[in-house]
């Protein structure tokens, strides 16, 4: 009986073989490899030898001031940019869907940052914020005009740098969210709004009781992918502060992983793997929490 079942299933397995092969080679194997790297103590990259297995790498990473700094930066970016960008995107989308004629024009304008290269956007931000020998940057000119003192946003105090970082991140992620939200808003049947109007529902109540529940699944999708994307931030930081993020104090977890592998302090795949797995654990936990909350909110 059991043998018959296996024969029967063989075709099925055969069909799945390409997918299994690809996933195995490019997803499962690297994951296992990273796991092994992260527990090999005193691993030497050149001679490929290690002294034994243990959790020293994790302990090292967690006590590394650079990693702690990266962790702090990443969390600040996540906590600020995800809610702010989603909220702003929702406001802009609501505005976009309520203006009639020039909607497509504005939609294009808002979508431009999405198709623009990160580094090119970084350049624009340099013009806005960076102090050079010739200019203090546009924002500082504005601050000066109102009688304030110039602030060095790129090489100056930590709060200024993290603020620029957050603005930059929001700037980069918002177009995609607007795109998704405007289409979600457009898909809500107009009859619901008509029905609500006949019943004299105030605009705020219409938004809160009808629009928001109708697009809640889209909002949760954006929040979840937003969290994941923000936790994996790296290239945006490079675009603003250059490749030596550790000395700028603006490193992120992914940046730390990269530095441990290939950066100036590189050549430590064990530490990099440990840091990567810590990031994985964080993202996984947050995503599970997000999903639980969204499931609860949607069934209400």
């Amino acid at each position, binding site marked *: 009986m059991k043998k018959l079942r296996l024969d029967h299933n063989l075709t099925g397995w055969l069909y799945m073989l390409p997918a299994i092969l690809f996933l195995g080679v490019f997803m499962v194997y690297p994951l296992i490899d990273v796991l092994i790297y992260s527990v090999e103590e005193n691993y030497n990259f050149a001679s490929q030898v290690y002294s034994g297995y243990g959790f020293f790498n994790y302990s090292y990473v967690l006590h590394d001031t650079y990693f702690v700094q990266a962790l702090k930066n990443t969390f600040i970016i996540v906590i600020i940019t995800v809610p702010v960008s989603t909220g702003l995107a929702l406001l802009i989308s609501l505005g976009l869907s309520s203006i009639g004629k020039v909607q497509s024009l504005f939609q294009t304008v808002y979508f431009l940052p999405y198709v623009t290269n990160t580094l090119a956007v970084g350049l624009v931000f340099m013009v806005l914020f960076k102090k050079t020998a010739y200019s203090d940057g546009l924002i500082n000119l504005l601050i000066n005009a109102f009688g304030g003192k110039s602030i060095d946003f790129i090489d100056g105090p930590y709060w200024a740098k993290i603020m620029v970082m957050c603005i930059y991140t929001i700037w980069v992620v918002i177009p995609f969210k607007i795109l998704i939200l405007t289409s979600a808003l457009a898909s809500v*049947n107009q*009859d*619901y709004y008509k029905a609500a*109007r*006949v019943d004299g529902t105030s605009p705020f109540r219409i938004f809160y*009781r009808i629009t928001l*529940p109708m697009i809640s699944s889209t909002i949760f999708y954006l929040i979840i992918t937003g969290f994941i994307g923000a936790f994996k931030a790296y290239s945006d930081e490079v675009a603003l502060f250059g490749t030596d993020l550790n000395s700028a104090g603006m490193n992120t977890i992914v940046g730390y992983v990269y530095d441990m592998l290939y950066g100036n302090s590189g050549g430590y795949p064990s530490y990099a793997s440990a840091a990567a797995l810590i990031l994985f654990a964080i993202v996984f936990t947050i995503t599970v929490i997000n999903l639980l909350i969204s499931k609860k909110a949607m069934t209400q």
Partner: protein
Amino acid sequence: MKVVLRELTKIFPSRDKKDKTEVVAVDDFNIEIPDGKLVGLLGPSGCGKSTALNLICGLEKPTRGQIFFGDEDVTDLPPEERGVGMVFQNYALYPHMTVEKNITFPLENFKGDKKLTKEEMSAKALEAAKLVQIEALMARKPKEMSGGQQQRVAIARALVKRPKILLLDEPLSNLDARLRLQTREEIRRIQRETGITTIFVTHDQEEAMSISDMIVVMKSGRIHQVGRPQEVYDKPVNLFVAKFLGTPAINVFKGYIRNKGLYISDSKVMDIDSPDREVFIGIRPEGFILEENGPLECRLDRVEVMGRDISVVSFHDAATEAGTVCVRSIISAENDVDESKDKVRFSLKPNKVHVFDAQTEEVIR
């Protein structure tokens, strides 16, 4: 509440950039809908009947004209201040709310003195739900119910505020045939019980005729005839109304009047007191009498048995010319039609024959 429409007109600007012609959706409406009646707005698709309903509701602003509820001019009032309840074609039930929440939703919008407590709202919702007999389904979500049940919820939601006017947009079009029969009786019953002036839109003449106290027949934005269903059926004012009402449809022949005689293809079918001219002659299916020497001769095609009646299907060139593909007459099954013959002769019941001017298509008699 009485509803009066005075010179009501709605013109939509053209959306097409090249073709600037405007669309006159509602053209100079003048009607008075008496208090407590069930009125059907009837017309083919795209005739402006839904626009008319939206104007009464307040969702659209009229280009010209006035709307009165009782003696009050509500033309410039927003929908919520008119005291109307509206049931949308697709019901527009909020999918994320339970039936009870859907029904109480309009009540939650009350402000100031009219504000209700939770208990009062539940009580009113239950009352409305009982009226449409869905009180057992209060905890369900819309997608967990059948189309007919959703329809009832939509009606309950429209009624819970005790509106002065209830408006229904194609209330039966999303239901299957059996439910449609049942639901239209239901609408009639609810209207009778509440006594609320109700206006509903439909393209199905049978639906409108069966339950309305009054029907308004429309075409291309214009009202063609207003009246009691039987009256409109018996005395159509023009060819369109005659053709639009009745199943099976009226049989139209080309004909003419000569010397006070009504002729179809050179045979005089009736006397008529009217000047000579070309005419269209509409004959209801029940207006034919099988008679061996009758004046109207048709080519017999087949006989369809329907139990109580039989339907005789035949052809006539004058009918073909007027666009009636086959002449359908309904006669009592006691008559015996010899199907082996290829000709059949009829005489006509004068009150089932309607004569229209060939140019204006207006009724002559």
